[in-house]
């Protein structure tokens, strides 16, 4: 194994293991857990290797099958994609620990099917962050979508309906993206991002270019559930099987935001987006502002923990989209840092929700009373995750919010600054409402509650994630200086 194609091993491990999980899982369920954890553990280590190599020796591009781009498909391994690889593999690994017992409980008899789709989804996400080819991106986007459709539809009750809704919306998004790529292809004759970026400025085709940009972006916004295109997300994510939600909720929207960043800067370039079209740029910040405020208000109306979290995810999408479109390096660093932090925060909260669901069953607010006595460790970790979402130092969420707000001030977009602060306050209300419910009990109920924690395999990753939130918070200086500054596109 040489290190020059280590990133391919990161991708191949879950993809190949998926086959074995399906085959061996039929024979015996006991093969599933070691295979899944082994593959993802390997991927995590390998992706760390990729990251350290990139930081050490700089970005490199990899040509699949040795066909030089733009003829063949190019993979780009730069600090940003390496960081995303680490994020995806580690989040997936942590989520799997908790997903295993949940799936055994909810999907008895279908574990091998579930985890095959699950691993392919992870492989798809890894492929997405590495690819440098616009069409390849579409194929991978559809892989992640189809696996997600399947995973969500495995849920109970209304889940298939939510999944169908997601299929329709997701297909519109994918089709729009494909249309945009088609326009770019007709315009330039190329599919390689770097190649397109090189040809585009030499062409006069402003209308087609703008249309392509518009459709690619709208397509991705549907996939990332940017308000007001978010309609499919709350049902899909809250009704999905718990094990699927654990993986999908932290990663899908974040990876799509990464894709937006990639497409924006690798194909169209900052100059075209921000300098030539300042109106679009500030319009986008306003849209993000509206997204943050509306999604936060919608979250207030929810009476179920998971549904509330899904609306928070939508609000956080607004954070990052706004940060990217602020068009300064502070805002962009904040957005990238927030991709990492938000993935971990969401993971932490969903892990806690899974642990609660495992013991309590329902996640409606009324059923959470007295939880601090019953599941103190789970709730402690939940509290850390909640603090991070609110943005209380020294948890990670504070620091990404710091950069985002600072970027907003720098760019003079005060509406965005206000929206971020507003959303922090709403998050504080949302989470302290839950904390209060879980801390207090029904009037007059003074029976000594039994401690009944979730199994260790669910607690372990939860505690680890909560600790990571604090460690990343305290280490955000080196993280930004050492990785994210390097990950910014050229010109920032």
């Amino acid at each position: 194994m040489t290190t020059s194609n280590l990133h391919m091993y990161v991708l191949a491990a879950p993809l190949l293991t998926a086959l074995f999980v399906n085959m061996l899982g039929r024979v015996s369920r006991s093969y599933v857990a070691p295979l899944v954890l082994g593959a993802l553990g390997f991927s995590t280590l390998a992706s760390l290797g990729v990251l350290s190599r990139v930081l050490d020796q700089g970005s490199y591009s990899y040509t699949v099958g040795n066909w030089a781009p733009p003829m063949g498909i190019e993979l780009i391994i730069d600090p940003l994609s390496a960081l995303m690889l680490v994020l995806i593999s580690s989040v997936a690994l942590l989520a799997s620990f908790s997903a295993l017992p949940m799936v055994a409980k909810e999907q008895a008899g279908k574990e091998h099917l579930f985890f095959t789709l699950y691993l392919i989804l992870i492989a798809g996400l890894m492929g997405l962050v590495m690819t440098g080819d616009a069409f390849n991106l579409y194929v991978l986007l559809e892989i992640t979508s189809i696996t997600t459709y399947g995973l969500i539809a495995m849920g109970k009750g209304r889940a298939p309906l939510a999944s169908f809704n997601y299929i329709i919306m997701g297909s519109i998004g994918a089709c729009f993206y494909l249309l945009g790529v088609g326009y770019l292809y007709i315009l330039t004759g190329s599919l390689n991002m770097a190649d397109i970026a090189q040809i585009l400025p030499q062409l006069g085709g402003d209308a087609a270019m703008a249309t392509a940009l518009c459709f690619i972006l709208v397509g991705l916004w549907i996939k990332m559930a940017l308000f007001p295109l978010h309609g499919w997300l709350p049902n899909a994510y809250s009704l999905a099987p718990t094990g699927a939600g654990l993986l999908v909720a932290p990663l899908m929207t974040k990876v799509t935001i990464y894709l937006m960043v990639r497409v924006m800067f690798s194909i169209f370039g900052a100059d075209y987006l921000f300098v030539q079209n300042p109106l679009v740029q500030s319009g986008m910040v306003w849209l993000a502002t509206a997204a943050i405020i509306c999604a936060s208000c919608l979250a207030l109306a929810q009476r179920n923990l998971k549904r509330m979290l899904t609306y928070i995810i939508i609000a956080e999408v607004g954070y990052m989209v706004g940060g990217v479109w602020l068009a300064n390096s502070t805002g962009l660093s904040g957005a990238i840092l927030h991709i990492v932090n938000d993935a971990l925060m969401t993971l932490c909260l969903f892990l806690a929700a899974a642990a609660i669901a495992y013991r309590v069953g329902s996640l409606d607010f009324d059923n959470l009373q007295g939880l601090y006595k019953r599941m103190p460790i789970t709730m402690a970790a939940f509290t850390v995750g909640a603090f991070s979402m609110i943005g209380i130092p020294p948890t990670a969420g504070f620091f990404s919010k710091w950069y985002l707000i600072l970027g907003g001030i720098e760019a003079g977009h005060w509406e965005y600054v206000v929206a971020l602060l507003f959303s922090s306050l709403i998050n504080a209300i949302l989470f302290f409402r839950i904390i209060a419910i879980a801390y207090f009990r029904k009037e007059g109920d003074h029976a000594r509650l039994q401690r009944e924690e979730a199994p260790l395999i669910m607690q372990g990753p939860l505690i680890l994630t909560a600790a990571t939130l604090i460690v990343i918070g305290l280490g955000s200086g080196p993280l930004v200086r050492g990785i994210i500054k390097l990950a910014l596109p050229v010109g920032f």
Partner: protein
Amino acid sequence: MKALALVATLVTGAILLYGTMDFPAFGDPNAPAAVHLSNNYIEQAVAETHVPNLVTAVLGDYRGYDTMFETVVIYCAGLAVVSVLRRSKS
């Protein structure tokens, strides 16, 4: 609702048509799409891959990575259908 859908459709269509303004005419042999990559494939593919069918050459070789994922898509879809339709034992 239907009116909204109609408006959305018309707007989308109008933008798409507006975008086609810059496109080369149908069948133009000098269109960018017809000269940039395509010429490379047509001229070199046979020599490089020894496959007379250019579509196969590109599909199986130059863009084999895509094709690998294409098969994965089918595999996923099959699995998803099975897992959605099979009732769980619990």
